[in-house]
């Protein structure tokens, strides 16, 4: 008794310390995650806004096409860049020197001329008219308005020069500069001009890739799991297969990329950089995950269900398709969604099959070249323009949002359909 009491204080202390250790581990994890989230959001939230400049454009028939012209060929060949330049000259008539003019034109994004062209193509009747239109500002101006340029530095070290600064101030006084919601970010493909770049191309690429991946890996994975769990005899061969499946789940993803390059591109002759090949490679990568999860789900269906079904005269196939599979499906789907989330964040295998590429056009199908979201993040992180920093973070936020919602879906499916015995 005395001995127990003597040791009691020490044992309580040890227990408290043990608990604290666990709590510390959780807190440390939370600290890192919140640090990651805060730094990404702090860097990236500004990318959802974009600086626009209001221009009073005169759709000069001499620069575009005569009034009444509707032929799209002629309309698209108009000098829209010249139109933007003329408008800027009109706003700042005091700028005459060639060098200064170039700096002045640099305030407006090259996207402005594409925007004007689109406007005219849509409605040719604007030719000869004057109209106020909001066009995107250059990325350097955008950085200035968002406060990323330190004005205390000497002029030579700044991307925005003193006279440009005075012009921007002039525009601001006229209420011609405004930060608006950055719609381009969600509707455009990649671009080398930060203000024109968007994630739609990469997001659709990810969508097609995952679609291919899902439509191959899910049926194949489930079929393999059903066979191994319900039909296969327990012998050395099935043991070998099981060990191999577990090993495959741990193989570095780049290996699957090399396999994809050798099999799908070099042997089957599929084109590089397309979601088709990406989806096939990622399907190979996620298959083990899905098979393992599906087998676990099948195992958790109690044998009494199978025995009852067989007892009332169902065939083994009926037993599986009518009773076992529906009960195991929520677990299988959870495994599949987690596998898909893993596939969504993968870049390494895609490097080998050419999906790390600059692609502007938004893919319309699984055979159009495209990038995927994580690749887009990688490419932007590697770009010299400063404005890509915030876009990189914004793209990470979008990717994280997808991943979180996919994982939540998995949790929800489990909660809703799971049955406990």
């Amino acid at each position, binding site marked *: 008794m005395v001995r127990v009491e003597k040791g009691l204080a020490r044992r309580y202390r040890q227990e408290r310390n043990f608990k604290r250790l666990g709590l510390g581990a959780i807190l440390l994890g939370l600290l890192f995650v919140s640090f990651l989230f805060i730094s990404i959001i702090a860097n990236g939230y500004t990318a959802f806004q974009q600086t626009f400049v209001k221009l009073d454009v005169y759709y000069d028939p001499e620069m575009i096409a005569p009034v009444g012209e509707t032929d799209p060929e002629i309309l698209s060949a108009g000098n829209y860049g010249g139109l933007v330049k003329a408008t800027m000259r009109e706003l700042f008539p005091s700028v005459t020197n060639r060098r200064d003019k*170039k700096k002045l034109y*640099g305030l407006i994004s*090259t996207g402005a001329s*594409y925007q004007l062209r689109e406007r005219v193509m849509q409605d040719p009747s604007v030719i000869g008219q004057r109209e106020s239109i909001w066009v995107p500002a250059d990325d350097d101006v955008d950085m200035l308005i968002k406060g990323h*340029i*330190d004005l205390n*530095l000497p002029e*030579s*070290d*700044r*991307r925005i020069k003193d006279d440009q600064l005075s012009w921007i101030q002039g525009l601001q006084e006229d209420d011609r500069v405004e930060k608006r919601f950055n719609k381009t970010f969600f509707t455009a493909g990649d*671009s*080398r*001009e930060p203000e024109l770049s968007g994630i739609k191309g990469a997001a659709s690429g990810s969508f*097609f890739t995952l*679609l*291919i991946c*899902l*439509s*191959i890996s*899910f*049926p*194949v994975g*489930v*079929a393999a799991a059903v066979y191994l769990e319900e039909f296969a005899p327990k012998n050395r061969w099935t043991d070998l297969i099981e060990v191999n499946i577990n090993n495959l789940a741990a193989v570095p993803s780049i290996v699957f990329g090399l396999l994809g390059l050798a099999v799908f*591109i070099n*042997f*089957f*002759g*599929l*084109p*590089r*950089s397309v*979601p*088709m090949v990406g989806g096939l490679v990622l399907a190979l990568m996620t298959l083990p995950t899905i098979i393992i999860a599906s087998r676990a789900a099948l195992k958790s269906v109690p044998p009494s269900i199978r025995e009852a079904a067989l007892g009332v005269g169902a065939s083994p*196939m009926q037993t599986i*398709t009518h009773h076992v*599979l529906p009960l195991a499906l929520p677990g299988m789907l959870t495994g599949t969604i987690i596998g898909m989330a893993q596939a969504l964040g993968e870049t390494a295998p895609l490097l080998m099959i*050419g999906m*790390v*590429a*600059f*692609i*502007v*056009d938004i893919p319309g*199908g*699984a*055979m159009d*070249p495209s990038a995927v979201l994580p690749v887009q993040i990688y*490419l932007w*992180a*590697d*770009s*010299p*323009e*400063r404005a890509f920093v915030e876009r990189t973070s914004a793209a990470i936020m979008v990717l994280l949002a997808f991943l979180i919602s996919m994982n939540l879906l998995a949790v929800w499916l489990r909660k809703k359909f799971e049955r406990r015995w």
Partner: protein
Amino acid sequence: MELSYFSHRMFTLSAYSLLTKSISKTNLLVIIISMFKERIEMKKLISTAVALSLTGFVGMASARDYISVVGSSTVYPFATVVAERFGKTSKFKTPKIESTGSGGGLKLFCAGVGVEHPDITNASRRIKKSEVERCAGNGINDIVEVKVGYDGIALANSKSAPQFSVTRKDIFLALAKEVPDPKDPESGKLVANPYQTWKEVNGDLPDMAIEVLGPPPTSGTRDAFAELAMEGGCKKIGWIKAMKKKDKKMYKSVCHTVREDGKYIEAGENDNLIVQKLEANKGALGVFGYSFLDQNSDKVQGSLVDGVAPTFELIADGSYPVSRPLYFYVKKAHVGKIPGINEYLAEFTSDKAWGDEGYLADKGLIPMPTDERKAFKSDVEGLKNLKL
């Protein structure tokens, strides 16, 4: 219903293809996949997925209608700008550009003729003889060489540290793996690089530990840095220069081999990363292309090399010693087969792109002198074959 319809069609197709012995690889793939699906009895669940995945196969056999470009990560930022403008202002699709590195790009480029191989490869160095032979071995005999412009390689440090002024000889002595014995430099004896600080290399330099962040050996920037900066400095030492005639291999290995004792840190191909590291570590220098220096001029400063600063004007007129030409190579057999190659070349070689005031100069490319531009433009228009 839908599934059985599709699989029925696929099997008819496969039977037909087998009969006519014209089964193509892609057909085979479709058949294999559809067979996997056939085995599973969950029609409703997957029939939509099958239908959707099949739409992906449509058009697989059709020819490529966009230009495929591979190659150097240094040329990538310039080629992408041209490609984007070309795609937006012409009726052609935007070319696809992969950043594979100069060597990787040429390997893909030389793999053969046909839609599955790239049409153009970018390179931050000239094509090698061995690569031309490799190309010829795969049936690519006609290549058009286009020089794009120049890129300066900057040795830069944080703005809050004093600006460096080094000679190429200093760079060699600070970074080479083996250097002449400091006790007796003329003895012709090489020792493992003993220098720890810049002051030991050259008494005029600050007393700071040598720490240089730069690209790994797979990078074209590293090749050019070794060739221009290190070999340039190496040549200044008389007896090593004399070695060139006797033993070229030895000379090259002495001049190009970078020390591996942790003074030169390989920072990956990401130049932005080097800029960030320089900002955090004021004692370090970094090696990267001029366009990154230009974009980050508020954070980092370029060191003077042989007394010349890496500025646009000084690189353009050739006085900055560490600058190299950038190229791209066009497969002539693809011109006319893949739509838009001629027009893409015309866009790239137009004055509004690569001219003195062109949009590539805004992105940090150093344009060629007017005469050189003219010569290359006329070569491109005539699709003149490469001669080494």
